[in-house]
């Protein structure tokens, strides 16, 4: 077993554990903090996949932005100290069947299809290439996404504002 594979297994186990705490944890604040750990593990996996720029974006947007927003929303909406009786609704068994079925199908599809063990040679510099591609080949989707962000920002302000 190479060092890279060992690192992958450790990071993957950490990420899955954190995701399980997010989904199954009783305390909502603890779930949000576990989400931060899960995002960090994911960023480490991006580094293993030679996507350094996306790892940085992951840490900035998910860890620094979205989880802070989630924590603020949790503090504004729920009494953290109070124990809630149930955190899950009454369709747990059905949902578990759906999730396990999906998992089996996805694992079958991803292990029986194409087998790739060796990656092609890396581009010499990924981040400058990505920047150029975003402003040339993908210029139109880039602009559309920026309009989407503007609309979402205005919409969120209007929805959250008190009249």
């Amino acid at each position, binding site marked *: 077993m190479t060092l890279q594979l060992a690192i992958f297994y450790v990071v993957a186990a950490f990420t899955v554990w954190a*995701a399980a705490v997010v989904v199954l944890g009783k305390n909502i604040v603890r779930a949000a903090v576990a989400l931060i750990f899960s995002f960090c593990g994911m960023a480490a996996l991006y580094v293993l996949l030679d996507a350094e720029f996306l790892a940085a974006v992951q840490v900035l947007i998910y860890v620094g932005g979205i989880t802070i927003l989630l924590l603020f929303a949790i503090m*504004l*909406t729920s009494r953290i100290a109070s124990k809630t009786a149930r955190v899950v*609704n009454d369709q747990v068994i059905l949902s578990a069947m759906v999730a396990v079925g999906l998992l089996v199908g996805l694992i079958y599809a*991803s292990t029986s299809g194409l087998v790739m063990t060796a990656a092609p040679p*890396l581009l010499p510099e990924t981040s400058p290439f990505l920047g150029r591609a975003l402003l040339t080949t993908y210029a139109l989707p880039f602009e559309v996404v920026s309009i989407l962000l503007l609309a979402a920002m205005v919409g969120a302000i209007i929805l959250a504002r008190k009249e």
Partner: protein
Amino acid sequence: MIPLSHYLVLGAILFSLGVFGALTRRNAIAILMSIELMLNAVNLNFIAFARYLPQTLLQGQVFAIFVITVAAAEAAVGLAIVLGLYRNFKTVNVDEINLMKW
């Protein structure tokens, strides 16, 4: 080198966990967190394929950037809606909010 299927199986596990959370949690914010988990699993698959397929235009990474952007917009609007719900119903448990059910 790590085989591609390892990343795909990890993405499948995370996606299924997210599906389970989104279907079962009562707190609307917990549902949003599960959805973020699912989007992250998809991003992992995109980036893994971008690494293991011949790199011509890095399509996988560019698509992952767009997914992250849409996820940020979704989180902002979703949390604003949750705040509005809390203001009107004094609860964020989705099974107690049955205004549009008959």
